[in-house]
């Protein structure tokens, strides 16, 4: 008895065979294959969107900066006051101020500063673009990005800060109306993209080109322009460095305040890495650089940033207020998504008196908290492993800052159940073994009807549509043990923890067992496939009786009627029979009379009595009821004589035609042998 178990279609990872083949291949290919394998195992994690606020979770309680203390002193009027106050503050408009950038210079340590400044080129061409990331519209695959050129400048290369006069620095002004929302797209975030192009030594045209291009309104996409430019300068070596800084983040909070900045630039060989391709690899060929080392080595761009009220340059801001008041809870820790902008490692030279900057530096600067988390990935049936380290307590999958090791582990375990996480203490911090959870319940958490969006239904919703009931357990109060890291250690006995499912119910799409068609939610309540008398059985019993050659048509008809009656009601006990007979008369009486089967029915009753299943009283009652029904059918009564003959003849005729096809199949006498 193997049942359905052998119907397996093999839902295992198809990578295993590919892995076997690659064993003897050159190392490079092997690494690639291994990488593929790794990605297959770990990349495709689709973590369900959290259905709760992180700060409300007990193990993330430190993320909740609020306390209920204020509630005691709460007055309704305070709300009005707060709003009025905020309005007043917002009236000092950050929007009316322009962004002024004054570039001190471009520093690249490969070059000695101002050595042979006569022969050598002593300036680079800088292009500043304002990048607007817009909200994704439904049809878009990714967020639409608009790049608006704000200007091109020649910036001195490795200037000696002592020599240059402050006033002579090139400066750029980004108009305030650039930050105003445009009609076509809701802009999500603004950032500045610096692009420094440094032509080779023999190039003298670069400067001229740069000057000429300044302030020209470029309507085409800048990248294409850039490419065409470099084509023109064929033969000459052009190095391009880019850096990006966020002005307003996606919560429309101002990230850049007045101050002096130094931006680390990156050589641009390929297009900037998009978020989608972000992987676990470290940036510089496995050589991990501490955050500040890039500033002593790599190319950097120095500039002063000022928010000015007018184009002439008088500073009106630092306005450390968010543009939108939507998320004014500035005291709670912000989520920093540094991994998204790996090209822009940025620090602020001058200490600025805002919360944001100080907090940004807090995490890496605090020596006590500097834990190194080693993620050890085990894959391909735990035969391969790859180790990655991380210096923060952010979740590698959803970048949630968990702040504490315990919280991180708890979060990983609960929110990323596709994997098994085991904590191993490590002298430098912690090691987390990550492996695939074979018991992972892959059933869909959302509305199952959405997976198989059924043609004709999924896209034609124009009103409320019934869904299957799925229960999400939002509140559950288990017995809480004191938080301890030991709970993440691998259990020795390998005993599988009774994993509570957090979503229960019918979180999958069901099918009709007869047609394999998807079961719609409105069809859930009634089981359409549990008939006691499915049609084929009803037909079967009739044909089976028809096969008898030595049973006459009147007998057959009564037997068929009775069989269908029993099949429909599913009688199981002898003591149900009296009741069953009366019900039969009630339901089929008229039919019996019309088909002229009364005497055959009486024979059936007597036969039942012979089997000790009904009493004579039931026979009497049943026949009396039949007479009564007969009297209630007047049309039959009138020409009963004719009817009798006609139907009887028809009956016989039927029997002949039906028996013609099924000649000699079965005889009842054969049954008793």
């Amino acid at each position, binding site marked *: 008895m193997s049942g359905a178990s052998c119907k397996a279609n093999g839902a295992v990872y198809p990578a295993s065979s590919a892995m076997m083949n690659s064993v003897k291949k050159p190392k490079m290919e092997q690494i690639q294959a291994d990488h593929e394998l790794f990605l297959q195992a770990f990349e495709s994690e689709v973590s369900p969107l959290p259905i709760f606020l992180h700060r409300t979770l007990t193990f993330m309680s430190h993320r909740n900066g609020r306390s209920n203390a204020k509630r005691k002193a709460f007055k309704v009027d305070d709300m009005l006051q707060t709003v009025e106050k905020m309005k007043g503050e917002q009236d000092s408009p950050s929007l009316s101020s322009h962004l002024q950038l004054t570039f001190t210079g471009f520093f690249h340590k490969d070059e000695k500063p101002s050595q042979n400044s006569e022969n050598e080129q002593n300036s680079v061409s800088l292009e500043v673009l304002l990048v607007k990331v817009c909200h994704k519209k439904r049809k878009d695959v990714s967020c639409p990005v608009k790049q608006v050129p704000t200007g091109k400048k020649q910036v001195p290369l490795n200037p000696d800060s002592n020599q240059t006069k402050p006033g002579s620095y090139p400066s750029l002004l980004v108009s305030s109306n650039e930050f105003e929302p445009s009609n076509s797209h809701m802009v999500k975030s603004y950032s500045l993209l610096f692009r420094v192009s440094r032509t080779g030594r023999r190039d003298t045209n670069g400067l001229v080109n740069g000057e000429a291009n300044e302030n020209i309104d470029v309507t085409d996409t800048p990248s294409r322009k850039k490419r065409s430019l470099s084509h023109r300068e064929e033969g000459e070596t052009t190095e391009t460095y880019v850096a990006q800084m966020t002005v307003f983040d996606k919560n429309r909070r101002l990230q850049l305040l007045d101050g002096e900045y130094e931006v680390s630039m990156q050589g641009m060989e390929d297009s900037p890495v998009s978020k989608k391709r972000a992987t676990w690899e470290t940036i510089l060929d496995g050589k991990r650089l501490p955050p500040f080392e890039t500033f002593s080595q790599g190319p950097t761009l120095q500039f002063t940033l000022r928010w000015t009220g007018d184009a002439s340059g008088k500073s009106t801001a630092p306005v450390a207020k968010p543009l939108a008041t939507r998320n004014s809870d500035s005291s709670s820790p912000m989520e920093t998504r540094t991994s998204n902008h790996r090209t822009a490692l940025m620090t602020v030279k001058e200490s600025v008196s805002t919360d944001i900057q100080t907090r940004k530096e807090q995490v890496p600067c605090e020596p006590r908290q500097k834990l190194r988390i080693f993620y050890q990935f085990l894959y391909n049936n735990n035969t391969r492993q790859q180790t990655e380290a991380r210096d923060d307590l952010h979740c590698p999958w959803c970048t949630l800052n968990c702040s504490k090791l315990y919280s991180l582990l708890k979060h990983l375990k609960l929110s990323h159940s596709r994997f098994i996480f085991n904590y191993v203490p490590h002298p430098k911090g912690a090691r987390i073994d990550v492996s695939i959870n074979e018991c992972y319940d892959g059933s869909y958490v959302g509305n199952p009807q959405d997976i198989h969006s059924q043609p004709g239904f999924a896209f034609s919703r124009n009103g409320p549509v019934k869904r299957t009931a799925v229960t999400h357990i939002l509140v559950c109060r288990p017995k809480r043990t004191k938080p301890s890291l030991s709970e993440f250690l691998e259990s020795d006995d390998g005993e599988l923890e009774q994993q509570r499912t957090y979503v229960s119910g019918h979180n999958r799409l069901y099918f009709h067992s007869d047609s394999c068609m998807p079961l719609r939610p409105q069809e859930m309540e009634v089981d359409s496939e549990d008939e006691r008398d499915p049609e084929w059985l009803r037909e079967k019993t009739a044909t089976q009786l028809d096969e008898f050659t030595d049973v006459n048509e009147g007998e057959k008809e009564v037997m068929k009627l009775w069989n269908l009656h029993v099949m429909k009601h599913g009688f199981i006990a002898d003591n149900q029979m009296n009741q069953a007979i009366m019900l039969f008369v009630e339901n089929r009486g008229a039919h019996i009379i019309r088909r002229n089967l009364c005497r055959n029915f009486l024979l059936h009753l007597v036969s039942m009595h012979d089997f*000790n299943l009904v009493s004579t009283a039931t026979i009497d009652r049943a026949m009396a009821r039949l007479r009564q029904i007969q009297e209630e059918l007047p049309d039959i009564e009138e020409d009963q004589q004719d009817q009798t003959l006609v139907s009887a003849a028809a009956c016989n005729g039927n029997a002949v035609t039906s028996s013609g096809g099924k000649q000699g199949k079965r005889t009842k006498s054969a049954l008793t042998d």
Partner: protein
Amino acid sequence: VVADAEKLKQTEKCCTSMFNTNRQKIMERTDILNQEWKTRRIQPVHIMTSVSSLRGTREVIPLKTLNAVASVPVMYSWSPLQQNFMVEDETVLHNIPYMGDEILDQDGTFIEELIKNYDGKVHGDRGETLSRTNSDASKKFPSDKIFEAISSMFPDKGSTEELKEKYKELTEQQLPGALPPECTPNIDGPNARSVQREQSLHSFHTLFCRRCFKYDCFLHPFHATPNTYKRKNLENLVDSKPCGIDCYMEYPAGVVAERAKTPSKRTVGRRRGRLPNSNSRPSTPTVSSETKDTDSDREGNSMFAEGNSRCQTPVKMKLSGEAEAADWSGAEASLFRVLIGTYYDNYCAIARLIGTKSCRQVYEFRVKESSIIARAPTEDEDTPPRKKKRKHRLWATHCRKIQLKKDGSSNHVYNYQPCDHPRQPCDSSCPCVTAQNFCEKFCQCSSECQNRFPGCRCKAQCNTKQCPCYLAVRECDPDLCLTCGAADHWDSKNVSCKNCSIQRGAKKHLLLAPSDVAGWGIFIKEPVQKNEFISEYCGEIISQDEADRRGKVYDKYMCSFLFNLNNDFVVDATRKGNKIRFANHSVNPNCYAKVMMVNGDHRIGIFAKRAIQTGEELFFDYRYSQADALKYVGIEREMEIA
């Protein structure tokens, strides 16, 4: 050119009108569909907005994206069933199973062996053509050469002469109105003949299954005929009062008859048939008197009978005059003979049931027919009334027996077949006893039989070993267990007895979806508690031999739905079954299977091994059942051996 242009225009017109009518039809049908769906609260179907014309003007239609639909696991077709269905062994291989070209090429021996299992017979090889030629034959009698040719080609179908006979038989029966000679004519038809009671009821008696209450049931190939069934309770057969002013009792003969009956009634219905029997002896009945009523007492009572007949004589004269006027049709006569065997001397009731004759006429006919009339049954005089004490002792022995059965050779569970050995107690020769089964209510033995299961007298839920039924792995019998609730509340699901779920079909709502493990899986709609009944594992009931033959194919397919029922039979849910057939195997299951005796039939119940939550997939261990009668089949069996 002009003509051509006009022609073109016309064809275009024609096309347009055809398109429009077609469109009209589509719209109408969509409307109907939408109307229906509206009432069923389903989203309507959108079709394209109207297209103005075929030519020239712009046509605007909305685009609907049809998403790719994920494929579902493979499912071979099967027929739904809620009760087991017994099928005969297949002597012919239905089809040569196809498992892909590779298997056919590589493993030809498998098919060969398979065909060998069926003695080389494969369906559709031959034979079918024979019957077709016969039925297609023209009305002219074919020449002998044809029969000779057929006979030489298919020697197994008979000689030339036999084929000729067969031909005659098959063609002649196509004449209208003809019925096989052994068939009783329809009693409601015009050709109804006057026949014996046995003949009238023969079809009903032989085809009726006393266990399923159906004619020619799907489960029990052999049915016991009722003649050996004994009447359990003697009903008050005779109305003591006349049925009306014309009642035969109002006439002197009736009075005499009534008077004659009274003493017989006092002697507990003994010899009730004596009077008419003797009465009618001179007037030989029209029907051949094959009465097996060779009553030894008859001779001794002849004196009493003669005395009766004497005083009846004048009345008889009068009655016979009327009887001549009353014309008894064949149907009426047959019906009378049927009813007299049930109602005996209750002529009023018989007349009421016949409908077309008065009780006087019935009585008179009765007098005429007397020689063939069956006697009223005698009560078992030697059966003493049941004593409570004795019953209790019986009970105790039974409980002991159940215990013994469980301890002893429980490895073999045999199919139950009602026993029928008249005048023999159920001893070691009784098939029920040898098969270690209890006698059931379907057995022909006395209700006092020692081997009968007495049922339970629980007042609780019958779900512990306190209940003798539960202990014996039987469901409560609604005709035996009268206190636990198994015989109550037929219409509702709230039965106090929890040990009658299989027979009542109180299964849980199951839902089909692709399994989390393999192929299809079955999921439960509502949560169930531990030991709650989930579903019966239904299918075809096949013999062990047939299961071996089928199992060879299933093993090859790596997919088997065989489930051992007992030593004689196997349930195969491959072709017919219910939704639980999709439950997958697991060594750590949430369900278990239990073969139970349910009103004489072994049936497989699937029960919850632990509490199961909404939407959980169901698993049971294919290798194990509580009855321990499971044979390991399919790949599981091979694994066991390995």
